[in-house]
């Protein structure tokens, strides 16, 4: 420390590779992805890197996206179904800055969609890839905290514990009390956690045309569901799997059969339900669909984003 230390910071220390990760790291991640595709639903360990955003904030999804992203891709990033949530904005900005790729909020125009907690309402096609951010990849984790045990259980296809858990739900509550991160069986073999998407989205995973890649950065696992793969939500013959349903349509765009967010309007119990998928909702409104609350002053405030866009 005899030299002034600031001199040790070289001027070239501020440049990064395309999409941040170096090419060797991307190759390592692509190998893990290929292995994941070859064994649908199997959690492939990979040497997850430290990323410039915190663990738990999408580092797995970001690494998968960085590894598959090409200069001609169009990227969409959503969180809770919306392009405007703060973390989605931050991740989209990260790839705009480090890769300079085109970004979009339109589900249709995107070639890669990175998501947290939702699957877009619109059906995806075979030219698209859906990248999930996964916090805890292990579906058995909350039944058995030890990785050494759960890996063995997967190897032996020993999923009795999971069925017992679902059975106990029914015995205690009369129905299965898992509402998100609802376990699925992939291609008749591995039980998989579809990341904390609401179970409403589980049917979309089954036989999807698009490739699904799941990245868990902190837990260092990647898994995949190739296009057109059979994915079954776990259930019993007498207690078949069912998704949430809402008794009202979206207050803004009148959509039915979509996932809705509950918005509290005042402190007197005033509430409205609106689409969680913001792009889907905006597109419907642009096409003239109006919900029962669309004219409500509160709703005008809520759809502020659309008005900005229209101007």
């Amino acid at each position, binding site marked *: 420390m005899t030299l002034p230390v600031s001199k040790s910071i070289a001027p070239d220390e501020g440049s990064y590779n395309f999409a941040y990760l170096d090419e060797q790291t991307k190759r390592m991640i692509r190998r893990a992805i290929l292995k994941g595709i070859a064994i649908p639903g199997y959690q492939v360990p990979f040497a997850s890197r430290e990323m410039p955003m915190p*663990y738990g904030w999408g580092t797995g999804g970001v690494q998968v996206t960085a590894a598959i992203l090409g200069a001609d891709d169009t990227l969409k990033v959503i969180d809770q*179904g919306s392009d405007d949530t703060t973390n989605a904005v931050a991740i989209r900005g990260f790839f705009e800055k480090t890769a300079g790729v085109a970004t979009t909020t339109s589900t249709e125009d995107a070639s890669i969609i990175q998501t947290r907690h939702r699957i877009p309402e619109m059906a995806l096609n075979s030219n698209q890839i859906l990248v999930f951010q996964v916090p805890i990849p292990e579906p058995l984790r909350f039944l058995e905290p030890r990785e050494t045990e759960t890996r063995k259980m997967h190897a032996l296809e020993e999923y009795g514990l999971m069925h017992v858990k679902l059975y106990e739900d029914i015995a205690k509550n009369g129905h299965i009390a898992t509402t998100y991160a609802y376990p699925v069986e992939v291609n008749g073999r591995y039980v998989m956690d579809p990341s904390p998407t609401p179970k409403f989205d589980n049917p979309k995973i089954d036989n999807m045309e698009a490739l699904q890649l799941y990245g868990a950065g902190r837990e*260092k696992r990647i898994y995949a569901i190739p296009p057109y793969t059979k994915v079954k939500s776990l259930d019993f013959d007498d207690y078949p799997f069912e998704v949430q349903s809402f008794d009202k349509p979206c207050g803004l765009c009148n959509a039915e059969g979509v996932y809705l967010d509950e918005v509290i309007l005042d402190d007197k119990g005033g509430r409205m339900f609106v689409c969680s998928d913001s792009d889907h909702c905006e597109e419907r409104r642009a096409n003239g669909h109006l919900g029962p609350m669309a004219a409500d002053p509160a709703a005008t405030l809520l759809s502020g984003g659309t008005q900005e866009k229209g101007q």
Partner: protein
Amino acid sequence: MYVAVKGGEKAIRNAHKLLAKRRRGDTSVPSLTVDQIAEQLALSVARVMCEGSLYDEGLAALAIKQARGDLIEAAFLIRAYRTTLPRFGYSETLDTAKMLIERRISATYKDLPGGQLLGPTFDYSHRLLDFAMAAENEGALDAVESETPLNEGMPRVTDLLSDEGLMEADPLPEASDAVGDLTREPLSFPADRDLRLQNLARGDEGFLLSLAYSSQRGYARTHPFTGEIRYGEVEVEFFAEELGFNVKLGAIKVTECQMVNQFSGSAKSPPKFTRGYGLVFGQVERKAMAMSMVDRALRWEELGEEQTAPVQDTEFVLSHSDNIQATGFVEHLKLPHYVDFQAELDLVRRMRAEWFAARDQQDPYAQTDLETGKEAAE
């Protein structure tokens, strides 16, 4: 979809501007220089280098400044930078017996070859706030007296004991053994000692401190004695394939701790002293000591001991020691979770309706205030 998250882009931009302003603080107070941090907050710098897992005092000081003094945030900045650096290979094993000693103490021997050397330490200082330091001008510092010039080589205490067979020998790794590296391969269990030590060296000081403390209080007692703590400068050498010999890359400051533990023997091994090992960048003595105690506790299986406490649980300790991972996952709860919360709202409403229906069926006269969920006075 709702207003709180609309316009996220603008909110983020403004938040960052405000952060920059708060980081700088009152502009009538001079800005800290990176050199000042490196020179005067050297122990913070050392901790950031340790947990950031990169030896660079300048960058660590910069990270501390950028992180407003939040050391975990600073270590995170260093980790995120470190991950982009190319890797040329692995250095030769450090020879800490050749350390240029600044501090060396042993709690197991009154005197020993090479002598005891207190060096720069808070030990034996009275923890009284020094108000003179608050004055602008600290003035010249007293000269330091040193009685004997230091020997170049200072044998490690554990080497002194080993000839009697009392002390377990260092396991000698085969030259062909690959170096475990959890930054290149995901950690898997069971984890060998090289990986365990790497994990602990990067681990959170507070977490290791508490685990070590728990072992002193009876949760897996390991009877530790401080065999030796030494702090100083060691040279790092790299074997250059093209040249066929070792090249000196430079010197780094490290703290090494060898904890000596009484061991009453087992079916596998006669009674002797066993060791726990700690090595960290810079003068981070508390961490080096805690690391050596946790390392020793994690060796229960190899020594045929019983597993009774959290500190011995390899998977538990190694999976939760990294504060960059821990802080990320704990703090990610700040991110919106309203999609999943909606699903839970729906479920809890349904379960409550069922609960009230079931109760009313049992006792049709029970009255319930559904608004608040409170039961009427019975």
